[in-house]
């Protein structure tokens, strides 16, 4: 509880310092203070080069190329292992002796609840607004390719995880970059160290950005929108909202009040299912519009009129939002999945295939279809509206939906923040060692960025979030290239056992 007290004291201190700016608008002040730095970071990471007149950020090309190479290298593992992945999730191969350990289902569900969320709701709306319906096509394609990236990084995450003497597990790119590359020789060991540190730095940044500020910002925007927009009591009270959320997050990560996190982890899947059902209902109710919507998606993917940058611009938007939604190649999933109980690392790779599939192919497609069908994607709509756009689309069918969506957005945001606070903390302690001071410092900083995120304008937040999250992909994927043969060996051995029936099946399918 002394940690809790430290956290609260710090927060009250921060609040006090903010109040000085009260007469000139606290939100505006914070925004102005942070924006220059945010812009600088963004500019540095998204160094871009022009393709057909569109400035394509290098990191995006980096992600897509890796996903494509992995897909071919593993001979379309994303399609081949689809059925077996389902069998694993369903528990057909559970070892009864390991009952009570983390199952494939639990690892997948936990990873998903850190991923499904604002990316699927706000990100898709932005993509369709800026890139037209055609962006959906490239999003789905990127989702399919991303499955191979997830497969690779999650298999590695399990293979090179650390088990501490007390039984707790630690895993993720930090570990496979160091341990995996070290196996290849001393020079690689050195490179691995550098990549791991770089990854950890970016991961801390990402945990403050896309895993924190973006969540706080978008959930606040939705709250304002649903309580009356500009006229809302909440408008311009972002700092207050930030403080409340920071307090709740603080209770969990500093106060150790696990109950809140546990409740959230139970409600989030329920909200996700509700969201999918509502989306499907709207699509079914407008079944006659579905063919033309798909027509618009496919036509728009190759012939983009009036979209800045033409086809390349559309493709850019689709790929960008897909990557941001499913985080394939970013390395965060490798952390979440590495807790699973299995002695064949590649099994979790198969299970991880389902993450981009559910997150991008299923959920994002549903959102996109709803937006297109209801006509809400009209390009004249302000693209920075984010969640509001999706909310309006659902509202046109179910007038009560914005309230449900608000609850969902708040819960998704909360659960994503809790997950990222854990990813970030693991990276932070990898960098600075594990003791109560480093630990406490990270957590205080995390809470601080909750407040900052709630107070900034969307543009600045999204750019910064993108920058930090995407930066993680550089060290992560570079390391993955070197470790591909390791994964291939695991895969081939396992696949031979699977095909020959040498695996013990504990349940009949």
């Amino acid at each position, binding site marked *: 509880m002394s940690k809790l007290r430290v956290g609260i004291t710090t927060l009250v201190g921060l609040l006090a310092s903010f109040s000085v700016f009260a007469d000139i608008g606290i939100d505006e002040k914070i925004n102005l203070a942070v924006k220059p730095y945010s812009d600088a970071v963004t500019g540095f990471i998204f160094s871009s080069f022009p393709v057909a007149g569109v400035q394509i950020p290098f990191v995006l090309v980096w992600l897509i190329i890796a996903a494509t190479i992995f897909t071919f290298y593993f001979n379309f593992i994303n399609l081949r292992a689809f059925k077996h992945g389902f069998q694993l999730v369903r528990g057909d191969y559970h070892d009864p002796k390991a009952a009570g350990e983390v199952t494939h289902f639990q690892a997948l569900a936990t990873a998903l609840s850190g991923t499904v969320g604002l990316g699927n709701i706000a990100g898709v709306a932005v993509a369709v607004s800026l890139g037209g319906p055609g962006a959906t096509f490239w999003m789905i394609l990127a989702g399919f390719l991303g499955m191979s990236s997830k497969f690779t990084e999650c298999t590695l995450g399990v293979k090179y995880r650390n088990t501490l003497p007390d039984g707790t597990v630690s895993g993720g790119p930090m570990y496979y970059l160091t341990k995996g590359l070290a196996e290849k020789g001393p020079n690689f060991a050195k490179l691995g160290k550098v990549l791991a540190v770089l990854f950890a730095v970016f991961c801390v940044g990402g945990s403050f950005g896309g895993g924190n500020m973006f969540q706080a910002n978008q959930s606040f925007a939705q709250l304002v929108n649903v309580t009356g927009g500009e006229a809302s009591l909440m408008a311009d009270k972002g700092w207050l909202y930030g403080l409340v959320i920071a307090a709740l997050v603080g209770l969990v990560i500093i106060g150790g009040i696990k109950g809140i996190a546990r409740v959230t982890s139970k409600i989030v899947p329920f909200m996700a299912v509700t969201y999918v059902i509502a989306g499907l209902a709207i699509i079914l109710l407008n079944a006659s519009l579905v063919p033309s919507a798909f027509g618009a998606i496919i036509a728009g993917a190759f012939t983009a009129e009036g979209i800045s940058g033409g086809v390349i611009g559309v493709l850019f938007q689709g790929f960008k939002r897909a990557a941001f939604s499913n985080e394939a190649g970013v390395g965060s999933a490798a952390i979440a999945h590495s807790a699973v109980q299995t002695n064949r690392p590649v099994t979790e790779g198969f299970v991880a295939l389902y993450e981009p599939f559910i997150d991008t192919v299923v959920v994002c497609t549903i959102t996109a279809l709803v937006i297109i069908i209801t006509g809400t994607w009209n390009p004249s709509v302000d693209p920075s509206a984010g969640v509001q756009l999706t909310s309006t689309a659902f509202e046109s069918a179910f007038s009560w939906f914005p309230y449900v969506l608000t609850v969902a957005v708040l819960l998704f945001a909360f659960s994503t923040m*809790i997950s990222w606070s854990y990813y970030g903390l693991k990276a932070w302690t990898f960098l600075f060692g594990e003791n109560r001071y480093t630990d406490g410092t990270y957590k205080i900083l995390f809470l601080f960025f909750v407040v900052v995120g709630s107070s900034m304008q969307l543009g600045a937040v999204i750019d910064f979030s993108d920058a930090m999250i995407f930066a993680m992909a550089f060290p992560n994927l570079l390391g993955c290239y070197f470790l591909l043969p390791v994964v291939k060996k695991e895969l081939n051995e396992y696949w031979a056992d699977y095909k020959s029936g040498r695996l013990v099946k504990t349940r009949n399918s």
Partner: protein
Amino acid sequence: MTSVLMVGVDCSDCSERAVEYAAEHARESKARLYVAHVIEWSPFSFSTVEENFERHKRREEELKRAYSDVIDPIVNPLKAEGLNVEGLVRHGHVADTINTLAVENGVTNIILGRQGTTKLKAHVFGSVGSRLVQVADCAVTVVP
């Protein structure tokens, strides 16, 4: 018939009658007796990232506590008496897991105490006893 008995226990105090019954039968027929305790757990529950990473540690703790608090107080006196007794603990759905343990150990008769559930509750949700009676691969005795 070489009988192998298994008694399913909830906690060391609340399963007295079933244990007594099982012990008496084990004494009579010199049968091997397993004392099984299942920690309720589902492979399809939801958990947070942090819980997942600490799950293995927690599981070890849960197993240790189950042995020390539930199994040992029942098994030790019976062992001292000279009976061929062994304790077993596992996570899972209670009825299904007791049956799995029974199958693994070649048990011929499972013994359970009846829980104090109301009739309505038992009818709607099914009690461990009624479920086991439906699924078990060996004889199941429920002691009231």
